[in-house]
């Protein structure tokens, strides 16, 4: 292979501390190099043209560019060499900017190091092979996991774009956290008024199939061709015939079931429809509380149901759906704040979460929109809001900022004043984070127009004092101790990854951070992609998010899916593993360790061999480092390529 080497000055970014001409001169001595030069800006149009011309003039078979990081311009230059008729994998980069010129000023050492890096890149390039993508058909259906606002947005955008959508929601209604909110900041819009119609759209959209009260059991396949096994959990109610009339709920004698929708404020019946606007509006039996299911006695609902849809024998059911892309919108859960002993660890009924307070504020909630102390039903006068409960707190393993608590607390303080004009709200906070359009103005209104007392400091203790709760904290601005006699304490509990997020991630083969939030493809440039092709993220599953951000991500994920499906066929990344059938002994170690299930056994002349499914292989190379005899090689990162790089550096 005749190799051309281009050493970039990057203006003075590199040239200032690397003698690029000397690097080019040294490169001329390397095996294979027939042309080497230094250029001002290799990535510029004239710079790229120079590469194209050199390829033609010197009949080059491969190119090394020594410049910035390949994370910046590898794609650019691959297109350049492709333009000159070379396969785009006959290209290597040496990073002499981020890894050399920018991290030290010793020109001699930098030049010397650059020469090494170019030698290494050249040795690797000499072992590069042209790689070709394979095309494969795609199934233009999309799975949306989670029916919160992000999932709804993604589903509707996709469906409107003409795609068939399968939505899987684990609870018996879609709507997610937003459906539980009374109002939204900073406009104080009615949450269910703006979300409700979108939920109805989901139910009515001809392109959307909704599986509520269902979970993902298994995911197989790869971008374009996933196969999903959905578990439809037993509802004990035949949803095909259930009309949602609610008679069963009225007659059900077991009225002590946990009301999950209302965050445990109040109780509900064992057979229930979570809330009047639920989508789908279907009843389901909570088997933990139904006496027919627990004790075999009762059966009232079956008797009263006009459509005869009660079925106590119902079992979980599995359905298989084939899709080409997946949007994950599994949202978040509230942090379990009972770890905080200083807040009573859950022992005081009048210390509640912000979300419970939302349900209390909501006209359709368990209190009919009246603010009442859970302990005695009395209207509170002094209400203390505590910020950063399970946020920005290393001691409970939650060092991150949930981001939206400051805003909902301000909103709740405002609503409190609306509901109870005589009340006084106190907010203990650390910092006010109100970055967003009209957000800061909103918190100001809470303070200034609604007379909410903001106290910068942490609460050190809450303890009961008669009927009230004594809230003791510090006011760090005043430098004094503060005590408030509170009737009700509302904790701004932070968000954490939803329960089961990591298990789902493993099924999706996507990665997640140490808190269980899903990892985006790139923190800046790929906010809704994951590292598994065809799997996208929307909403708070990627990290705590407020409604507009969740919606934006839902739309962004939808746009990604629509973009992906704009082609009839996809091209696979050819940097995948390949099995040398002659060397494979069929021990299966690669199959065992492949995180993607991309290697399968096959028969070859009566012997077992490994076989890579190119479209599933993600190119991590775990198989290559696992195979003792090197029979499976990750193309573009083969053992011989890495060994040649090692040898280029280490020659005694």
């Amino acid at each position, binding site marked *: 292979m005749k190799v051309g080497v281009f050493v970039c000055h990057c203006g003075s970014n590199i040239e200032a501390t690397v003698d690029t001409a000397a690097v080019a001169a040294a490169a001329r001595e390397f095996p294979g190099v027939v042309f080497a030069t230094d250029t001002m800006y290799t990535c510029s149009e004239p710079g790229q043209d120079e590469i194209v011309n050199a390829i033609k003039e010197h009949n080059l078979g491969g190119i090394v560019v020594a410049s910035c990081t390949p994370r910046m311009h590898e794609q650019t230059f691959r297109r350049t060499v492709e333009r000159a008729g070379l396969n785009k994998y006959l290209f290597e980069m040496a990073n002499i900017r981020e890894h050399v010129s920018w991290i030290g000023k010793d020109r001699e050492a930098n030049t010397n190091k650059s020469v090494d890096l170019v030698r290494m890149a050249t040795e690797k390039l000499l072992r590069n092979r042209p790689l070709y993508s394979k095309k494969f058909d795609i199934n233009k259906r999309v799975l949306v996991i989670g029916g919160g606002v992000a999932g709804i947005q993604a589903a509707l955008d996709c469906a409107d774009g003409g795609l068939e959508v399968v939505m899987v929601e684990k609870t018996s209604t879609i709507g997610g956290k937003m459906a539980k909110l009374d109002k939204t900041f900073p406009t104080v819009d009615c949450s269910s008024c703006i979300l409700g119609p979108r939920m109805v759209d989901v139910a009515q959209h001809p392109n959307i199939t909704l599986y509520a009260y269902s979970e993902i059991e298994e995911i197989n396949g790869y971008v374009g061709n996933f196969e999903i096994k959905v578990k439809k959990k037993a509802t004990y109610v035949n949803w095909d015939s259930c009309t949602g009339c609610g008679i069963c709920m009225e007659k059900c004698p077991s009225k002590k079931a946990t009301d999950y929708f209302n965050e445990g404020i109040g109780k509900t019946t064992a057979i229930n429809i979570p809330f009047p606007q639920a989508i789908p509006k279907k009843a389901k039996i909570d088997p933990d509380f139904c006496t027919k299911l627990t004790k075999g006695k009762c059966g009232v609902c079956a008797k009263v149901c006009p459509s005869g849809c009660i079925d106590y024998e119902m079992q979980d059911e599995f359905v298989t759906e084939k899709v080409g892309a997946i949007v994950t919108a599994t949202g978040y859960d509230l942090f379990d704040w009972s770890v905080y002993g200083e807040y009573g660890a859950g022992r005081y009924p009048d210390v509640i979460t912000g979300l419970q307070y939302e349900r209390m504020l909501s006209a359709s909630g368990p209190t009919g929109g009246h603010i009442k102390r859970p302990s005695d039903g009395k209207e509170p006068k002094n209400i203390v809001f505590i910020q950063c409960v399970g946020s920005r707190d290393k001691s409970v393993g939650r060092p991150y900022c949930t981001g939206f608590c400051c805003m909902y607390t301000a909103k709740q303080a405002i609503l409190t004043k609306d509901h109870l004009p005589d009340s006084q709200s106190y907010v203990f906070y650390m910092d006010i984070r109100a970055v967003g359009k009209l957000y800061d103005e909103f918190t100001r209104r809470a303070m200034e127009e609604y007379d909410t007392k903001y106290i910068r400091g942490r609460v050190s203790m809450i303890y009961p004092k008669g009927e009230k709760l004594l809230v003791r904290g510090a006011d760090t601005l005043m430098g004094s101790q503060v005590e408030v006699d509170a009737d009700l304490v509302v904790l701004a509990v932070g968000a954490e990854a939803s329960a089961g997020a990591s298990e789902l991630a493993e099924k999706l083969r996507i990665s997640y951070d140490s808190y269980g939030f899903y990892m985006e493809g790139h923190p800046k440039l790929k906010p809704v992609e994951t590292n598994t092709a065809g799997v996208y993220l929307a909403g708070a599953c990627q990290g705590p998010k407020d409604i507009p951000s969740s919606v934006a991500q839902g739309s962004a994920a939808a746009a990604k899916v629509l973009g992906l499906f704009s082609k009839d066929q996809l091209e696979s990344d050819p940097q995948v593993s390949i099995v040398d059938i002659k060397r494979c002994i069929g021990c299966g170690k690669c199959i065992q360790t492949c995180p993607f299930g991309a290697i399968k056994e096959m028969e070859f002349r009566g012997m077992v061999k490994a076989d890579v499914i190119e479209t599933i292989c993600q190119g991590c190379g775990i198989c290559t480092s696992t195979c003792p*005899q090197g029979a499976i090689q990750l193309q573009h990162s083969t*053992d011989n390529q890495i060994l040649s790089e090692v040898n280029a550096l280490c020659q005694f």
Partner: protein
Amino acid sequence: MGNPRSESNKGDQVKFQEELKDNIRKALPELDVVIGWCGSFDPLHATPHFMRREEDIDKLEISPLSVHNLATYLPGLRGKKVGIVVKGCDSRSVVELLQENLINREDITIFGFPCTGVVDQSKIKKALGGHTGNIEFCDMSESVIVIKSEDKAYTLPMAEMLADKCSSCRYPDAVISDYFAGEKIGNKGEEDADYAAVETFENLSVPERFGYWLKEFDRCIRCYACRNACPLCVCRDHCAAESRDPHWLSQENNVRDKLMFQVIHAYHLAGRCTECGECQRACPVDIPVLMFKQKMNKEIRDTFQYEAGVDPEATPPLLSFKMKEENITEKVW
């Protein structure tokens, strides 16, 4: 199998051998071959014995000379119905091969017996003044080996002639078998393996350790007997040692490549090696190549509490992981 067993037990040896032969006789009609040991070119050596016909069984001899780990032959006989006579340590190799799906359990018939240890030929050679080329007579009891060589008689204590692996054996009985002849001695797998020798070596200075290997491997002839005798070197004809793609090693006679090969061997055996010691026994120039594998096993044990060759259903630690590794303390920068 350092268990000192009384002289009166010698009769047992004869008895279980007969029982073993009966077992093989019973099974042979259903099998293509049964592998055991028989006498070899002199009274001090045994050799693997492939029994295909009934009369072959008569030649079977189990003794402290039955050093070879016959599990090495199993992957090459895949597809055939094979019987194999195993010492406790050999049976662990069988377990490993089963674990890695390199043999089919239903094709293998395992004959176990209570093993009281095998000899280390190099110890005998030393005891005989460095020469075992003219052995005229050899008889073994539980406690002694009587050898006549060059018209001189030697009575050597068996305990001192046993292979190192035997003096600290924790698995004298096959861990897996279809037939077991004789009384089981009792496995002690729960006890820790003994790595005192490795630890002693590790206490040497860096140049001493490095220098030791440079010197030892200088005489390596790269015959790869260590590899080919290893029951778990299953790459066989496709070993990285001789391949050009991947090109890990040159064919030049240099210590670097010889040493590198031993590291490759040890690493590829990490979590798989049962320390049967065949690598070292097979070495025609007596290089102590087992130590690398022992060190690897020591690390595997300390880090993952894992021991190879006891559970056919287990996953070797380097082919699995835990999100949280209790025994890995990462460097703090």
